[in-house]
């Protein structure tokens, strides 16, 4: 056998050794009793047809490869953007382990969140004791300044009432009476992670803004809610930089994850880093306005802020020239600060870069999937570049969202071939990529399976990105961010040209140095 203790071969090579190739072939032939190759081939081909697509789209019960995650993931993300805050998920610990790995794999950072570790008896008798013990332990072990509570399905199914549970826990002395424990019910069987984000932010604001004796005195400050964003590290820093250039000083970023998801390696472990402080959160009530960078991440939160008397403004993950223009002009109008020459130059450089490269992107067809706001922002930028968004798919997308996408598409000649697919999954997208092929696919790491199946090159531009590193450290917002996105699109297009021309002696006549 090729494997020996002297030199252990890893999986990449081991199963390619002749002995294994032979062994696996014999196993297949003698024991697997599989369908004939021709039959497998026939069915595989059939899954690429219009006929199969029709059946695929008629699917009712089954979701295959969803492009969304659950509410508590969004809630954990939202709460980790507050200073010295421990995210506490009431429910089973397994769920929380998922959120932590999910976020850790994407951001390449340790991720801290705890659960009340409910078990079978808690499911029968209710999770109050787990809450009481859990809050006490969290408080003692991790010494947070705030514990933010969300829920998993388990707690939601049995109907645990967070408000009374937390009240009871405080009475039992788990945490001091005045210790902040905001909460939100975040059942995974409703909505998606973007809804969980919304619920959690609203829960936190509500805890402070509706506290006894609190009244609102309007100031000139503004709030900004970034929303659930895999690029939050780069993007929030970019927003701060732009605000700095404009001289906007009086602002609060509500849920600032840019530090906790990007701590330095200097010998010190930071369980908490950066984030919106309790004081800032309280003070944010007095802001004259709240801007949301992602409408679908803040539906309830903005309604709540408006109810409190603030002006509210929605964006849909603003990418590119016009998206950034609108955002900056809104900030300028709200704060009275002018957009400085330096930012104008950045804009000019972006326009220049697009002009330099437009011929490569013009008319290219794209499929885009991801969170509802990302799909909107990305499609808009594509059309700005002269590219055509063709399939725009969001598993978390609603009918309202689909209408909004359609309106966006109708506004540009480059949107003519585009269709929004709300509530559809990546298996639906697979059919679409076969029956109505596109040049490139924009999504997250899960898109690599579609790339492999359909040979549509994948551009990773949204959460989660597990199989490529450090993308989140660079912004996608602002003119600088748009440049990052532009370069990613171009790199893929040009890499793709190289791949299609790199067979020596066969296709390499157009393997060009200058492109």
């Amino acid at each position, binding site marked *: 056998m090729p494997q020996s203790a002297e030199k252990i071969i890893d999986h990449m090579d081991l199963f390619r050794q002749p002995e294994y190739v032979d062994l696996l072939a014999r196993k297949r032939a003698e024991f697997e009793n599989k369908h004939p190759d021709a039959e497998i081939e026939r069915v595989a081909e059939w899954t690429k047809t219009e006929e199969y697509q029709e059946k695929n789209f008629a699917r009712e019960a089954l979701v295959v490869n969803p492009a969304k995650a659950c509410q508590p993931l969004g809630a954990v993300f939202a709460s980790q953007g507050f200073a010295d805050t421990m995210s506490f998920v009431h429910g089973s610990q397994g769920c929380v382990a998922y959120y932590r790995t999910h976020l850790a794999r994407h951001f390449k950072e340790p991720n801290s969140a705890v659960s009340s570790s409910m078990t079978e008896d808690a499911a029968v008798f209710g999770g109050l004791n787990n809450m009481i013990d859990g809050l006490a332990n969290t408080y003692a072990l991790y010494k947070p300044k705030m514990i933010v509570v969300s829920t998993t399905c388990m707690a939601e199914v049995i109907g645990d009432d967070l408000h009374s549970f937390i009240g009871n826990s405080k009475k039992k002395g788990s945490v001091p009476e005045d210790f902040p424990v905001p909460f939100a019910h975040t059942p995974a069987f409703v909505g998606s992670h973007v809804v969980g984000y919304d619920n959690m932010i609203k829960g936190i604001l509500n805890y402070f803004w509706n506290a006894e004796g609190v009244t609102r005195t309007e100031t000139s400050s503004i709030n900004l809610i970034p929303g659930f964003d895999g690029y939050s590290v780069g993007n929030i820093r970019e927003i701060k930089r732009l605000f700095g250039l404009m001289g906007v000083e009086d602002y609060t970023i509500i849920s600032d994850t840019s530090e906790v998801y990007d701590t330095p390696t200097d010998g010190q472990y930071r369980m908490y880093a950066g984030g919106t402080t309790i004081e800032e959160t309280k003070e944010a009530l007095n802001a004259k306005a709240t801007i949301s960078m992602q409408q679908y991440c803040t539906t309830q939160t903005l309604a709540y802020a408006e109810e409190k008397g603030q002006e509210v403004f929605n964006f849909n993950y603003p990418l590119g020239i016009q998206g950034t223009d609108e955002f900056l002009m809104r900030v300028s109008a709200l704060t009275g600060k002018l957009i400085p020459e330096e930012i*104008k130059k950045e804009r000019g450089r972006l326009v220049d870069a697009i002009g330099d490269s437009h*011929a490569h992107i013009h008319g290219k067809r794209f499929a885009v999937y991801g969170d509802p706001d990302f799909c909107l922002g990305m499609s808009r930028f594509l059309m700005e570049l002269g590219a055509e968004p063709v399939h725009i798919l969001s598993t978390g997308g609603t009918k309202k969202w689909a209408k909004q996408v359609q309106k966006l598409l109708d506004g540009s000649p480059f949107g003519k071939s585009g269709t929004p697919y709300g509530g559809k999954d990546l298996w639906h997208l697979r059919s679409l990529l076969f029956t109505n092929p596109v040049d490139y696919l924009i999504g997250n790491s899960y898109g690599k399976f579609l790339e492999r199946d359909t040979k549509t090159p994948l551009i990773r531009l949204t959460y989660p990105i597990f199989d490529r590193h450090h993308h989140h450290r660079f912004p996608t917002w602002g003119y600088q961010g748009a440049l990052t996105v532009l370069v990613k699109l171009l790199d893929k297009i040009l890499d793709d040209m190289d791949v299609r021309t790199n067979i020596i002696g066969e296709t390499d006549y*157009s393997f060009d140095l200058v492109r």
Partner: protein
Amino acid sequence: MHADKLTAVFNEPACAHNHAKSEGERNKGCRKALKPGAAAGGCAFDGAMIALQPIADAAHLVHGPIGCWGNAWDARNTWSSGPELYRTGFTTELGELDVIHGGEKKLYKAIKAIVDKYDPPAVFVYQTCVPAMTGDDIGAVCKYAAEKFARPVIPVDAPGFVGSKSLGNKLAGETLLDHVIGTVEPELTTPTDIVLVGEYNVAGELWQVKPLLDEIGIRILATISGDGRYREVASAHRARAAMLVCSQAMLNVGRKLQERYGIPYFEGSFYGVTDMSEALRNMARILVERGAPPEIVERAEAVIAREEAKAHQRLAPYRSRFAGKRVLLFTGGVKSWSMVAALEEAGLTIIGSSVKKSTAADKERLRQLKGDEFHQWDDLKPRDIDRMLRDAKADILLSGGRSQFVALKAKVPWLDINQERHHAYAGYDGIVTLVEEIDKTLSNPIWPQVRLPAPWA
């Protein structure tokens, strides 16, 4: 560099540009000193290199310090259908000690290494400024190496300082005439053999033309030098007719093919419907005059009729889209004018063209055809290009190389039609491709964005 060689090259009798001058001026030739301190184009070495490098199976060795080739290797999309050796960057990379002690031995060793490792049919050795000044005799080294390795080792004596890129083209042509053409007898000749001079197969343009020639029955014996093979180029003297494709650059090659071997030549272009048809007609006519079967004229006419009809049909839809669109041509290439008819046919209005390499007669003809408002300009500084673009209110600039990025700053859409381009614009299909590319560029949404100030300004 021998002064007589330079004078001869500059005083090209077949050059219309030169013809149009007074006698005194004509004798001075075209040698025009470059203006120190002003931005200039490429050097003679660059010109020689781009003219010869497309000979794909040969090794191209640059004898010089790293800059000459380090900055330039494989920077042009001239494609090969077979060997790829021409794209490997070979240089002697001369250092300080070579400047002191001379680089001849190093050059010899480099040639030997190439022959040992790659066994090419020929090695082209390019002289550059430094060894030309320190006195390396590349002619002697090449001669010695050629005997030693029993294959052609050709000195290309066009160091950068002798002049412009265009001069380098011509010197490359002289090199071929002196050392290459006529040294090999072809295995097969036919009465319809032609040689294409100055066709470089940029982005595969030659391959857009070749199927039509195949259909007519015209055989390309050799191309100088696109998708070229050494032995084919060396046997070019057996062609029955020659076409000068990029005419000014290698006029000397055409004339001397005629003088030495009696091969008639004509100047033509594959750009644009009219010029393409004209080129096919001329080829067939000259070949028949030299004894080729007369049917090829009929076959050429049939191909022309069919392809023209097809091209017209494909260009027609653009007429309405292009109505009122104004185009500036800035190519440096002498045959930019040949695209004008095709672009006008697609409904574009051509409002100006560079005439840097055109003759006085050409310029006059342009003036008569297009009127005084038509912009013609020779050599422009980036600032002048910028001003001119703004004044002319063009919708699109067809340009290449260095001017395209200036165009963008002047907020004018541009399309790359120079040597780095990726689309083939030659032939009937090529002009349709060009029009398609223009259409894309004109309709790209970045242009309104480019023209508008930041919305808050």
